[in-house]
């Protein structure tokens, strides 16, 4: 793989090279795409045992101060006062038309302390938006320089326990600060149980070595991370979500507290309330093609008569599903499971059926 000079380099780069990683560019970073095990086996390894991901490209931002909760409540459709200490929530930054600027995980770490985990591709935009939200309030907004590792899979908890990490009592979608500069959550992006562990770069190698050295654990690259999240029906920002897509169309209304669905003080509230009241014109759906051919992002969707309906936003092969899987957007009238549509792949029609998401039985829950 060719390297582009101005890509960001992971602090643990040498470990990935030693593990035989193939690297590729993603969101301005040179990232491990796969390891010698290969994408298919990496994917299955996470579903069966535990996989270790270096996701240090993602951005942690700490909001802190007497009015940190008010800043969060302005930035996101969240009720920070209703969040218990240690509770994590999946949420969004919305623009004035309720389009999604980014999807985030926000964790309440204390009365005046919130951690935001944002996508690499949106880090700069998010930081500006969070600062805008915090500006009227007594709240600092601090981007943190951390290594972020994810350990995902049914054996993740046992591996963490054996590595001496304090995971007992940590339920899914909760987090804590186990030591100064560290941030540990039980969460993930694979549909499996698992953890994300952030730590100062100079303290990361010891834990990474300990986890990677466990015989139940394998390094997993971004390619398998993508197929794992797709099977779990989780969105990738920039593909399934963007600024022209609102949470209702994306099927993510569950992440908006009921008390905020009619409006509120958060960015995008009037537009979101209007969309909720009127209903979304299109919906994110799961799609399964007939046959073995993957139908990937960008493939147009239409009726049998050739009327355009929408677009596939993510697609590929689902190693655990055992067949190709896709997600895309369709008009509401075509979004019911069982509906037949036609995708176009390299000029040829591929019949697809709308299915319920996720494609696999999830072992984690999102809320």
């Amino acid at each position, binding site marked *: 793989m060719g390297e582009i000079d101005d890509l960001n380099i992971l602090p643990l780069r040498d470990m990935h090279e030693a593990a035989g990683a193939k690297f590729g560019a993603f969101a301005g970073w040179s990232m491990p795409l796969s390891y010698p095990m290969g994408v298919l086996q990496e994917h299955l390894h996470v579903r069966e045992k535990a996989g270790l991901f270096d996701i240090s490209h993602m951005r942690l931002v700490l909001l802190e101060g007497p009015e940190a909760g008010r800043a969060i409540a302005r930035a996101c459709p969240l009720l920070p006062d209703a969040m218990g200490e240690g509770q994590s929530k999946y949420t969004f930054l919305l623009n004035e038309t309720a389009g999604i600027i980014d999807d985030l995980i926000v964790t309440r770490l204390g009365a005046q302390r919130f951690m935001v985990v944002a996508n690499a591709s949106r880090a700069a935009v998010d930081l500006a938006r969070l600062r805008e939200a915090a500006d009227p309030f007594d709240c600092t907004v601090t981007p943190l320089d951390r290594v972020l590792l994810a350990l995902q899979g049914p054996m993740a908890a046992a591996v963490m326990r054996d590595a001496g990490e304090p995971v007992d009592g940590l339920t899914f979608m909760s987090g804590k600060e186990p030591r100064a500069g560290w941030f540990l959550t039980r969460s993930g992006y694979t549909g499996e149980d698992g953890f994300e562990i952030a730590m100062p770069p100079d303290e990361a190698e010891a834990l990474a070595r300990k986890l990677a050295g466990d015989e139940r654990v394998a390094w997993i690259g971004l390619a398998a991370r993508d197929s794992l999240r797709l099977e779990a029906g989780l969105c990738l920002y920039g593909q399934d979500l963007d600024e022209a897509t609102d949470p209702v169309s994306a099927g993510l209304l569950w992440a908006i507290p009921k008390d905020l669905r009619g409006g509120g003080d958060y960015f995008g509230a009037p537009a979101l309330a209007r969309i909720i009241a009127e209903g979304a014109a299109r919906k994110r759906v799961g799609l399964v093609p007939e046959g073995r*051919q993957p139908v990937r992002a960008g493939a147009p969707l239409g009726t049998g008569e050739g009327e355009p309906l929408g677009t596939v936003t993510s697609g590929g092969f689902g190693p655990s599903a055992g067949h190709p899987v896709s997600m895309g957007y369709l008009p509401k009238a075509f979004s019911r499971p069982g509906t037949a549509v036609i995708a176009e792949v390299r000029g040829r029609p591929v019949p697809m059926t709308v299915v319920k998401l996720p494609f696999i039985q999830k072992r984690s829950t999102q809320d």
Partner: protein
Amino acid sequence: MSKTYYTEDHEWIRVEDGTATVGITNHAQEQLGDLVFVELPETGKSVSKGDAAVVVESVKAASDVYAPADGEITAVNDALSSQPELVNSAAEGEGWLWKMTLADAGQLDGLMDEAAYLAMIG
């Protein structure tokens, strides 16, 4: 006697008794990773050198495989419909993609032999 040639796009073409067999190199399959689908052409189709004749799809992405010479496709490797992974396990053997006639055997002169190809991929 057979002779195998290699292209800069990581295809191999093996010529035996006037028929050519085409596939992707072992180096190419390593770069692509696990294949999950191979889109095979119709037999009888005419191809020109440089045409995208086959699409191989890995978990990650779809990639074109180009015809290394002009000719007509006489057979495709149907086993790949159910076992695309044959390309990973035996790229330069059982994982062949198609057989073709050669309209102009002289086109092969511009291709590499194995030693030159191995030197190119380093």
